[in-house]
């Protein structure tokens, strides 16, 4: 019987914090669209004699994140210098945290591969600064320091993850939490959230850990899942063939779908960490922590539990609405405006999600308000339009931003519930299709739906379908 293998994964995530200014100077941290080297000053360019000053907003964002990740907030933490040379690192060291980080020992709950809840332990979440960017030209490189000094939150898990899918779900969950807190866009494609995985494989049942490799520069959720899956496969193959895993740092080549060696163990850096003498230790009072706790929003897990409780959704359904805070807000507003949480859920995750996907827009940019959906559904309830008409009215609402009532009036979509009028249309249809009437009466009951369709077509879909059914039944079954 084939040997089974177990994969042990720890994740390291860097998230840029959404502060107005950089980590240690007053330059704007909103650098994305700025021309190169315009958001710079003596401090973030590392001119001789310039000194860092801690950005309080970044510290607060880190504490709030720590709280949301169930971490301990250290009353005393220390910044440290991480020394290495590279042209995107102007000081020749990165100011980070090493021995005494700001937050430690937390957890995030995810679902494991069997669908059971599982806690991924957070070892630490600390503050540091981003590097600049290199633009490689033909035979030379250019340095852009706009990004240098942007606050970065580094979140490190224990080696608690057991599959590529778990790693993927952890990252999605983490992104949701960061977005709920408003501390980061956590946009991987734009580099606002970056990810590294530490991974080792061992035969199931073996006590000691396998050799650990590090996969760097995973810049999309897909890359995380693919790279880990690939690497597990590669390592299992090596082990099966009796080989040994080398301790290396790997990169991920997404276009070829494989990992490649970036650095061997021998080339590993000695970062020579030591406490940053230009900054005093960071002291955080209990009062400050409690005041920040007050600012936390309802977090995704709590919101999911509440949606299950209050709206009768399953956990899976609730998470679909909760994963994005704006969607959850939209949903709740619609429920408040209309009631019937199940029906709102179906409309939201059906018609509206389809539109979001097709138009590729976030929910806060669509032209239908939760109140607008409520109005539309009430038009169905009071019989003004039928469900099918409602779907096309919603499309129209999404496209034009007009409200439901206006669309119904302008296009004359109000459903025909006038029994006499519908009865004469039914008569016309039956008279025009004597063959079908005969066949129906001879026992081909499946034709009933066809008759309904004919009437709906004749009324351009506006007929009250219940009434149509009743009239047809009366006439055909005579």
């Amino acid at each position, binding site marked *: 019987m084939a040997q089974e293998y177990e994969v042990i994964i720890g994740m390291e995530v860097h998230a840029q914090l959404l502060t107005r200014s950089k980590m240690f100077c007053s330059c704007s941290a909103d650098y994305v669209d700025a021309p190169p080297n315009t958001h710079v000053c003596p401090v973030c360019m590392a*001119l001789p*004699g310039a000194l860092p*000053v801690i950005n309080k907003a970044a510290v607060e964002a880190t504490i709030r994140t720590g709280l949301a990740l169930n971490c301990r907030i250290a009353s005393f933490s220390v910044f440290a210098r991480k020394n290495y040379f590279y042209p995107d690192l*102007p000081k020749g060291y990165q100011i980070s945290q090493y021995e005494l980080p700001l937050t430690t020992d937390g957890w995030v709950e995810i679902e494991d591969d069997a669908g059971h809840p599982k806690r991924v332990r957070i070892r630490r979440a600390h503050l540091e600064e981003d590097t600049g960017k290199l633009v490689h030209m033909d035979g030379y490189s250019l340095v852009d320091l706009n990004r240098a000094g942007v606050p970065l939150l580094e979140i490190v898990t224990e080696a608690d993850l057991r599959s590529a899918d778990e790693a993927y779900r952890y990252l999605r969950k983490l992104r949701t939490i960061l977005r709920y807190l408003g501390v980061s866009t956590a946009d991987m494609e734009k580099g606002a959230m970056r990810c590294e995985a530490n991974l080792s494989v061992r035969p199931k049942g073996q006590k000691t850990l396998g050799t650990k490799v590090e996969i760097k520069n995973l810049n999309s959720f897909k890359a995380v899942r693919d790279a880990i899956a690939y690497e597990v496969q590669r390592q299992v193959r090596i082990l099966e063939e009796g080989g040994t895993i080398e301790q290396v740092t790997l990169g991920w080549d997404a276009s070829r779908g494989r990992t490649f060696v970036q650095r061997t163990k021998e080339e590993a850096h000695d970062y020579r960490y030591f406490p940053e003498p230009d900054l005093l230790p960071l002291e955080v009072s209990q009062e400050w922590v409690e005041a920040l706790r007050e600012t936390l929003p309802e977090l995704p897990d709590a919101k999911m539990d509440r949606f299950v409780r209050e709206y009768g959704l399953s956990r899976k359904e609730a998470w679909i609405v909760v994963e994005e805070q704006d969607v959850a807000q939209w949903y709740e507003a619609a429920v408040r405006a209309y009631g019937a949480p199940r029906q709102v859920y179906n409309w939201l995750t059906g018609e509206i999600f389809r539109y979001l996907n097709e138009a590729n827009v976030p929910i806060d940019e669509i032209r239908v308000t939760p109140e607008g959906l409520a109005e539309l559904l009430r038009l169905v309830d009071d019989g003004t339009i039928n469900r099918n008409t409602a779907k096309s009215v919603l499309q129209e609402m999404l496209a034009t931003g007009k409200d439901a009532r206006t669309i119904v009036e302008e296009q004359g979509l109000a459903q025909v519930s006038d029994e006499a009028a519908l009865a004469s249309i039914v008569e016309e249809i039956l008279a025009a299709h004597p063959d079908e009437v005969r066949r129906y009466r001879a026992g081909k009951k499946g034709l009933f739906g066809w008759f309904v369709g004919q009437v709906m077509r004749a009324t351009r879909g506006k007929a009250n379908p219940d009434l149509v059914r009743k009239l047809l039944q009366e006439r055909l079954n005579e």
Partner: protein
Amino acid sequence: MDELYRLTAHEARDLLRKGEISATELTQAVLDRIHAVEDKVKAYITLTPEIALAQAAEADKAFVQARKEGRAHTLPDLLGIPLAVKDVISTAGIRTTCASRILENYIPPYDATAVQRLRAQGAVILGKTNTDEFAMGWSTENSAFGPSHNPWDLTRVPGGSSGGNAAALAADETIIAIGSDTGGSVRQPAGFCNLVALRPTYGRVSRFGLVAFASSLDQIGPMTKDVTDAALVYEAIAGHDPRDSTSVDRPVGEVRRALGQEVRGLRVGVPREYFGEGIDPRVADVVRQALRVLEDLGARLEEISLPLTRHSIPVYYIIAPAEASANLARYDGVRYGYRAEAATLWEQYKRTRGRGFGPEVKRRIILGTYALSAGYYDAYYLRAQKVRTLIRQEYETAFRRVDVIAGPVAPVVPWPIGWAMENPVQVYLTDLLTISQAIAGVPALAVPAGFSDGLPVGLQLVGRPFDEETLFRLAYAYEQATQWGKKRPVIE
């Protein structure tokens, strides 16, 4: 009026306010003096006569206007006063080389906070003075631009690293100066050149714009011809700066009010170790004489012991190079300063730094890199930090018994130029008496104490953290009683 360049700042201030001299005359007199003696002294790396004269003209306008309005006495003390700035302190628009080839052509876009505050008073910047490269040294012999000469004996060093300031002040090539002190770099040259210098309490003066050598030790301090001037410069530059997180938010006060106040009853501790092994007996004699003067003034001398002092040298030579090894990493040829082009990035780094830094700087970068390396950190850096705490505690304990600690500034008199290069280990030991104060972060002041064979000897007064005032009080009383500082060298 003759020889305006010999004036102190407070003498010049009084004359300027009365309108008896102009800032332009004063500045011109100092520039002429520089012209006359600089060839022999070599105090400056960069001279800025145009800037100086323009600032002097501005000052004169302010004086004329204020005198007209009868408020000349309210003008800043240092308005129109010529100033020399050590070339490790950033000056907007004025080349700041750190006496290093790697920054030979670097012109900062911003002023250090200390410079900004002096400029705000209207001080007149004459230029940038020589120093050991990145302030690493004791004599200016490590300058990429060659050594400065001691005006008391041109064959000898003026001390260091702020030796250019000391040479300039002793040769009357400036009225006031600011330097930096990491392990004695304002006090030792002041002692070697018959001048006053203060190393303020760590955190008193903003380090913003001071090119970092060892961040936890660096402190900017005044260097002047007398105690009163040191107080005026200190008042101008001290005080909290939000741009330096290690600067302390505590009121500085007007230390000048302490000048002339009673010193009777002050308890002065005299550490046995400051007169022990390694101290030139001739220096010890001069300083003992100075201590007797303090006693005559009513101070109560008390022998104390600071046994950890001798450990301050190994502590210093781990912590300072460790911090320096990181602080100097930014000189990589990428953004500014010297760059040696090469085919690969690593070759460019190696060539740039290999050619850009001098031997002493390289020595300390290597020492510091080693001390921070994996496997050595605990044995060196961490241990040094622990001993540092003990040295600090030793001072705290001593200051429960005494108000001031007194001793020599340096264990030797200025040595002949070239001696240090041949005696690299001995020269490290000459820091013995100035390093422990930097390690502990306490303030210390050097004041002229007389001469040994025609060479100056300095008296060092060490105070409690943030008690610069007592140092000024005692130093002023001593200065008034002795007048050593009035002596000037003849430069030939």
